[in-house]
């Protein structure tokens, strides 16, 4: 029976090509969307889980109470790792790990600025990095050593054997290559291109050797013997900072490595989720899209019930049981879903490069994995069963006598089920349209919101190598200003779009002694306000006309916390030293464009700083200006790449996550809408078929094609209206929840709802009309003749 049914199923699919196309196409798009999203979810979910000990590995987080809140960050004193390992039972390994940053590595003529970090030898025990060359047991023990990743080794040495070769680090230290490890996976939080011993860190940063328990400057990674020690170790760790330094208020705790990436938001010192929420949304989206594709399938299949009804009747009359028929219809739908799966693969393979590029990830289908194939077949069969169940049970329930007598079998009940399914699809599609619109509104709002300074044509250049010498920096500034393409130059102690040092120790008259206020510390040269285009709400910038060594500027956020109406001229204490406020900077976006500005204090420095900020002259041609600037920098500091970038590019990076969400919901929302339209088309096909006779009679009685179109559209418009009514509150709740995590957010206006309403209505009417127009225009006699 199976073979014959299979043959007939194929024959049927071929005979009804249009139907097959709509059905397979819809299902394939649904499956492809679902699998693409699942691949991405699996990628994110797999973060840091490549290492065999990930379950017992922890990142040390530090809770600090300040400004009435608890801040949690992965920054610890350098002393912690060793002390914790010595004093806390159950800790197998503990290592320091420097925040990776790009540094220069040179071999002969090859020079690369790549991500680098410092750590202790035991890091190779915590992470089972795959060692390609060298003896792992000796790694990082010698202070002049470096371990490279494969790609960097290739780039530096080509085909030479890198082991024991000498490379130059930051143009000053000579390091011996001890080993080569495989490149770290892209979804690993611990990432670097080359790794150096912690002892070298101490040599380069002598201050760190003296740094005590109140200086949080590195990450600490801890591996437990096993997780039964967790409670004990965690509670012991809690007091370790205060036990060593009574003045400190740091309370460290263990955060599982596996959660480091996904659970990255903390409130009140506790992990409260983070990226995982976005992941959950995407996971849900994946299944909802698959579901509406299945719904589509059900709709189209039952719509053909009229045609299949007779077959059911006859089969029953020649001895088929209901179970046989259910089996037959299930087989057909699984066949279709397997076909769709094939098509879905073609779609995925075509889309993956684009998708990877868009998301900055490395997703790939691993065809050699058995998990993949089980998942694939499982998904296809599940989809087939899900999509085929309703048609199978519905069609197989037909009473043979009624069918054979020619009674219409499509009762009202099946129609209302189908209407319900269409409403369901449209609720989902409309919700997605609303959410997408709001996400874009929010993106636009943040993009257009004033940053507080002018990011356009503002260039940031890291001060490195010889530029750290004040006279070379002065030379650079002088040359730039004289080049004619630069209007102003200043320097700053942190990248202007990123975080930097912060701390306590600011005191002012009337401060509550018990309260800790965490303040960002920055320093700058002259012309800071002029170069950046920030605004002063009071006072003045640092200037050569004044002796500003004991003067500071503050931002409005700090002024507000201090409760000062007129801060200019006030004297406050910073680490016990009195300083005078000379200016108040209007709050600008420091790190996150979504968050309120943090309090900040800015001092003046003559010496070197982290970055130079260069304002390109308004009259200059940008591309020539960039060339000129590059040339000047290269001339003065030939050993380093210029590494210049535009501040507005850094800003665009900050919107990446939201833009990604916007793009995802746009694309997948589009797919969902498209699939829903196919469903509607199916229903319209069916309705038109059903009402052919009625329409013909109406036409004979004098109805125009337009009258008929209105008649046919009316029902669908009603369905879409109902779907909108349900989708509005639903969409509002979802998007409101999403927005609530932003300090700066758009108000929810009527516009997204109007867009969703008009769009869904327009699409529905268009879809239905395309189909109905044919019926409306058809010659009525054709339909009536066959009665």
């Amino acid at each position: 029976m199976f073979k014959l049914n299979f043959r007939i199923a194929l024959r049927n699919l071929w005979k009804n090509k249009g139907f097959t196309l709509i059905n397979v196409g819809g299902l394939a798009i649904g499956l492809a969307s679902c699998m693409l999203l699942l691949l991405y979810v699996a990628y994110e979910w797999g973060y840091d889980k490549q290492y065999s000990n990930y379950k017992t590995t922890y990142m040390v987080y530090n809770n600090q109470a300040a400004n009435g809140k608890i801040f949690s960050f992965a920054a610890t004193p350098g002393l912690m790792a060793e002390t914790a390992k010595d004093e806390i039972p159950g800790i197998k390994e503990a290592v320091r790990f420097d925040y990776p940053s790009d540094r220069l590595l040179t071999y002969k003529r090859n020079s690369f600025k790549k991500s680098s970090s410092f750590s202790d030898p035991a890091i190779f025990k915590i992470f089972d990095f795959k060692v390609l060359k060298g003896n792992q047991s000796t790694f990082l023990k010698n202070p002049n050593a470096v371990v490279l990743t494969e790609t960097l080794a290739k780039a530096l040495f080509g085909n030479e054997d890198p082991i024991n070769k000498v490379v130059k680090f930051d143009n000053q230290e000579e390091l011996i290559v001890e080993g080569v490890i495989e490149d770290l996976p892209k979804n690993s939080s611990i990432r670097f291109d080359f790794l150096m011993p912690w002892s070298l860190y101490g040599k380069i940063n002598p201050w760190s050797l003296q740094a005590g328990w109140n200086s949080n400057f590195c990450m600490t990674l801890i591996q437990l013997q096993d997780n039964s020690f967790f409670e004990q170790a965690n509670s012991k760790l809690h007091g370790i900072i205060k036990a060593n330094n009574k003045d400190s208020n740091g309370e460290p705790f263990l955060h599982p490595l596996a959660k480091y990436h996904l659970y990255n938001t903390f409130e009140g010192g506790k992990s409260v989720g983070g990226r995982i929420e976005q992941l959950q949304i995407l996971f849900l989206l994946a299944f909802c899209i698959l579901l509406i594709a299945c719904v589509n399938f059900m709709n189209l299949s039952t719509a053909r019930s009229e045609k299949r009804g007779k077959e059911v009747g006859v089969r029953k009359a020649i001895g088929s049981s209901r179970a046989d028929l259910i089996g037959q219809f299930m087989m057909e739908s699984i066949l279709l879903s397997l076909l769709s799966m094939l098509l879905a693969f073609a779609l995925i393979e075509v889309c993956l490069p684009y998708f990877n590029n868009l998301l900055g990830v490395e997703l790939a289908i691993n065809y050699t994995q058995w998990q993949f194939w089980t998942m694939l077949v499982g998904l296809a069969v599940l989809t087939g069963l899900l999509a085929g169940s309703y048609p199978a049970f519905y069609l197989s329930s037909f009473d043979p006598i009624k069918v054979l007598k020619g009674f219409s079998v499509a009762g009202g009940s099946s129609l209302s089920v189908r209407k319900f399914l269409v409403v369901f699809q449209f609720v989902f599609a409309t919700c997605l349209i609303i959410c997408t619109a709001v996400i874009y509104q929010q993106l636009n709002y943040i993009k257009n919101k004033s940053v507080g300074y002018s990011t356009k044509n503002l260039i940031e250049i890291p001060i490195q190598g010889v530029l750290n010498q004040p006279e070379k920096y002065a030379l650079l500034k002088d040359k730039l200003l004289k080049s004619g393409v630069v209007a102003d130059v200043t320097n700053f102690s942190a990248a202007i779009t990123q975080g930097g040092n912060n701390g306590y120790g600011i005191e002012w008259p009337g401060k509550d002694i018990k309260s800790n206020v965490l303040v960002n510390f920055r320093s700058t040269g002259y012309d800071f306000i002029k170069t950046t285009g920030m605004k002063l709400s009071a006072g003045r910038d640092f200037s050569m006309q004044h002796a500003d060594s004991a003067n500071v500027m503050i931002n409005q956020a700090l002024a507000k916390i201090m409760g000062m109406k007129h801060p200019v001229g006030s004297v406050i204490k910073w680490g016990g030293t009195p300083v005078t406020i000379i200016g108040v900077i209007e709050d600008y976006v420091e790190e996150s464009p979504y968050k309120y500005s943090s309090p900040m204090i800015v001092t003046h420095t003559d010496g070197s700083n982290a970055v130079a900020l260069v304002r390109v002259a308004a009259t200059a041609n940008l591309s020539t200006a960039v060339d000129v600037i590059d040339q000047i920098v290269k001339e003065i500091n030939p050993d380093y790449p210029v590494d210049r970038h535009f501040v507005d590019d850094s800003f665009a990076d900050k919107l990446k996550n939201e833009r990604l969400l916007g793009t995802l919901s746009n694309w997948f929302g589009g797919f969902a809408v498209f699939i829903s339209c196919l469903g509607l088309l199916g229903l319209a096909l069916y309705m038109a078929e059903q009402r052919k006779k009625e329409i013909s009679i109406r036409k004979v009685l004098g109805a125009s094609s337009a009258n008929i179109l209105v008649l046919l559209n009316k029902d669908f418009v009603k369905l879409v209206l109902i779907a909108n009514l349900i989708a509005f509150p639903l969409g509002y709740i979802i998007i409101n929840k999403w927005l609530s995590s932003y300090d700066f957010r758009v108000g929810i206006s009527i516009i997204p709802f109007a867009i969703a309403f008009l769009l869904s209505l327009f699409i529905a009417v268009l879809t239905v009309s395309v189909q109905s127009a044919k019926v409306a225009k058809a010659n009525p006699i054709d339909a009536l003749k066959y009665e």
Partner: protein
Amino acid sequence: MIKLENIEKYYANKGLKNYILRHVTTTINAGEFVSIMGPSGAGKSTLLNIIGMLEEPTYGLYEFMGENITQLNERKRIELYRNHIGFVFQAYHLIDEMTVAENIEAPLLYKKVGSAERKSRVADMLDRFNIVGKKDLFPNQLSGGQQQLVGIARAVVAQPAIILADEPTGNLQSAQALQIMELFQTLNKTENMTIIQVTHSEANAAYGSRILNLQDGLIIK
């Protein structure tokens, strides 16, 4: 073989019982060729469907080969049905998507007959009904008479004990009708197949050994 006792069938319409069959009592023995006759709407098709287990009587006793059908569960009934009953319809009711050969093969598949046996039986049928040349055609490529031949071949191929035919020649010209009736007669005579047919034609009824006359749901004779 078939025993009907006080079979009643009605449809309730707005609380009113609309009787189609009333107190139908009769016995049909193996090897009989019975024709059911009567005016339109008398309930002939309904009676035939009840005998064929496609419909259930509202009331009464129905015994088929000694089994009480009204008390049988679904599975047993389908089993009985598959093995012993073949249906022939006025409108042929072939499956449009299947070729002639496949249409004839289908009941054997449901009966789970082995593949070799199936092939030989189908070949046998094609041969016997002179439609070997048409075996790969689809129903819509056949004339009405040819379709009905396939319909009968499909009913006969499973070697049922009884064939139920509802106006098998209703849509056919008299020459073709004649051919079908002679076929029935041969099946009845040579293979001792029990045949029950519904017909409006006295000529057709004459092929049978007995006539059941139905009027307003009652057997007259």
